[in-house]
């Protein structure tokens, strides 16, 4: 019964996402595109970070490579950046596997730091290898649909749905169970016959690929990329973690909710309170980590129990 209701809500949400946007203003559709992009990124990060417990402070590497995959094709051979939708994720995965092979030897904070350093190295390399990447000038390409936003929205929606589907399939398979086992206790996982390093690589592949896909979307939608924006440590790598954290790591709907709230809130705050929007945002992040460390989805049972208790006490008083 519960399950049926969940599917119903899901189906209704899906239909809303398809039917409503044509009736919305350009700006609202723009925000929705960013929401879908951030949902995709949060899901991508969460496969490696939330489920497998390998906290990456450098996922902008894969976002940036996803963007540059199409960008480089366009720059050197004038191929439409839409091919980047395939080339970007593939490039991200090709780079992700050796990074994993080297860095998965490190545990906990050391892995996080290594990813952070790699993020910086790759950003500097892309800025300075002028002949290959066009350096800090970045890459510009024409937008297929000009100022029209709806087609981009539907592509973003399909990509986000694809990321949700992949995560759902992972969670309900041997891979999902093995990933979480590795997060919870690596030694116990080994003793259960789980080849932990190999499965971390298995987690890296969809994680890098999905993040790269979001990058490829960004390339096509924004139509100009610079190393400092797509490989940004703060605005991409770290915000990805915060987005997951707000929603709740390790679940399916946590990153979805987190990505949506993150991108939506970011835009709304910027539109309403302008210059102090980011401060408010950072304070919200601090409060969430302090008081809801497992995010909205993860802390929901606790919150619900607390509310129920309050209801009971006020009920008995009345």
């Amino acid at each position: 019964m519960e399950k049926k209701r969940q599917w119903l809500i899901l189906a209704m949400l899906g239909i809303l996402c398809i039917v409503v946007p044509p009736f919305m203003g350009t700006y609202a559709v723009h925000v929705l595109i960013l929401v879908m992009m951030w949902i995709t990124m949060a899901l991508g990060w969460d496969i490696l970070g939330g489920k497998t417990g390998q906290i990456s402070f450098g996922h902008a590497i894969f976002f940036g490579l996803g963007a540059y995959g199409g960008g480089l094709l366009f720059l050197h051979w004038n191929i439409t950046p839409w091919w980047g939708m395939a080339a970007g994720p593939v490039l991200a995965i090709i780079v992700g596997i050796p990074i994993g092979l080297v860095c998965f030897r490190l545990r906990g904070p050391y892995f996080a730091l290594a990813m952070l350093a790699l993020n910086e190295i790759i950003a500097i390399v892309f800025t300075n290898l002028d002949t290959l990447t066009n350096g800090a000038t970045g890459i510009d390409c024409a937008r297929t649909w000009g100022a029209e936003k709806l087609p981009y929205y539907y592509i973003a929606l399909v990509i986000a749905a694809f990321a949700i589907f992949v995560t759902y399939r992972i969670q309900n398979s041997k891979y999902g169970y093995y990933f979480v086992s590795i997060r919870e206790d690596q030694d116990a996982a080994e003793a259960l016959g789980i080849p932990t390093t190999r499965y971390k690589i298995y987690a890296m592949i969809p994680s890098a690929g999905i993040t790269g896909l979001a990058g490829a979307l960004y390339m096509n939608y924004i139509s100009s990329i610079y190393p400092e924006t797509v490989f940004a440590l703060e605005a991409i790598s770290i915000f990805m973690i915060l987005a997951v954290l707000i929603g709740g790591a390790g679940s399916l709907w946590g990153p979805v909710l987190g990505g949506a709230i993150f991108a939506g809130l970011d835009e709304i705050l910027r539109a309403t309170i302008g210059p102090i929007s980011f401060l408010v945002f950072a304070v919200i992040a601090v409060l969430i980590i302090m008081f809801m460390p497992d995010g909205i989805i993860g802390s929901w049972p606790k919150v619900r129990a607390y509310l129920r208790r309050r209801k009971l006490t006020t009920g008995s008083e009345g």
Partner: protein
Amino acid sequence: MAYLDINGVVRKFGGLTAVNGITLAIEKGAIFGLIGPNGSGKTTLFNCINNYYPPHSGDIVFKGKSLKGISSHEICKLGIGRTFQIVKPLRRMTVLDNVMSGAFLRKNSLNEARDKALESLDFCELTHRKDMLAKDLPIADKKRMEISRSLATEPELLLLDETAAGLNPREIDGAMKLIRKIQDTGITCLVVEHVMKFVMGISDRIMCINFGREIAKGKPEEIANHPEVIKAYLGEEYAKGQ
């Protein structure tokens, strides 16, 4: 050739030789007890068997196959399961999910793994706990869950590290029953234990080690009265007084 053959295994940590040339053979279907005072090298020997700490010399042969250079997870695949002295539950997974993570070693689909896990939980009488988070279990059930999780990997040899430690007398009786039940299914057990009642009650043969060396080997009643064993546990003075 015995089922599990341990030949002169040595493992050092810096200047300390934790296991110093242990040799033992276990027959198929037996329960073999390994006892010894704290720090005598019992758990290290376990860690050598599943190559968590590779032995520095000596050889371990399981069903005629040397385990040298085989990684921990492959050893599990070969059919050697283990539990931990300090329990290692997958804390934020439910009990069922814990056991399913073990079951996936030999089952590939979700439903098969779930069935296998439920069967294993039923065997260990933990079905009523299946939806609890592993971290919320009381210690006795955590230990049971570890056994259940190991059984779900369908081992032929089970290494049990201090299953009875921290349990009350009633729980110890329950654990003994469970291990006999495991033996009845044809699984060979190597048991490291401190609780004498437990290890004397279930083992077919026992070896006592101290400072990484064998000091006695034999049937439970022989070990219980062995002067060296009494000396190791209760001290020289007590042994003299006997």
